């Protein structure tokens, strides 16, 4: 299952996303939680301890390459396998959850 949780800022979407992830993980399902918000707060709701939170690193921008397809449309694609990216950049959260923070890429280079 691939679940996206959207809503207005302050609507509580992060609380719902984090608690949903924990609930799924507790029922024995492997879970990858992705914080795609530019103001990332998912770590707290998932219950990462501050020590672990400090391990969260920015995703380097060169993870994406521009490629132009046969249809002439240029898209951004991963330069590496997603599993490698998860293995390298995801941090451990309670109940065996792996968490990736995308929003921190915001700080890694000029726009």
């Amino acid at each position, binding site marked *: 299952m691939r679940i996206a949780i959207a809503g*207005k800022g302050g609507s509580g979407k992060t609380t719902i996303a984090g608690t*949903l992830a924990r609930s799924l993980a507790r029922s024995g399902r492997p879970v990858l939680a992705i914080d795609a918000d530019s103001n990332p707060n998912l770590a707290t709701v998932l219950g990462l301890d501050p020590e672990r939170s400090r391990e969260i690193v920015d995703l380097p*921008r060169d993870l994406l390459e521009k490629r132009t397809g046969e249809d002439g449309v240029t898209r951004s694609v991963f330069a590496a396998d997603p599993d490698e990216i998860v293995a390298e950049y995801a941090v451990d959260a309670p109940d065996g959850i792996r968490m990736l923070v995308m929003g921190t890429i915001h700080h890694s280079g000029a726009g």
Partner: protein
Amino acid sequence: MCRAHATVRGLVGELVSREEGDRDLVIDMEAGLEHLSRGTGRHVSTFLAVMEPYFRSMETARRAVTLARELDIGRVEVVANKVRDPEDREAIASFCASHDLPLLTAVPYDDSLIRSERHGSAPIDWDRDAPAVKAIRDLASSLTA
């Protein structure tokens, strides 16, 4: 649009589309709607729009549902949040009914969420039987049923 944000959207879309599927993905999306019109959520199987019981929030959730439906996502539903009383419940229910929005569940307003945050604790660790936590646990069960 800021290019850094465009990169984040590209990463999310790419990661989700190439995920092989033996684990659940739970994505806390960027607030707002712009990313949806650009297809960030395209590869998910379930899209939940969180809706608080006041007009601007309901309107944002309605637009999110409209955009998600255009992306051909299998399951697009509304989760009401911070519902305090029957009046809130009625506001959500009537808005959803009049705009043809599927309301999956209503998560109650819950002070324990504020207390858990103040103590730096996950809501589910602070009080797993708090009303809001219970509602979200039930939501997880219904999604996997």
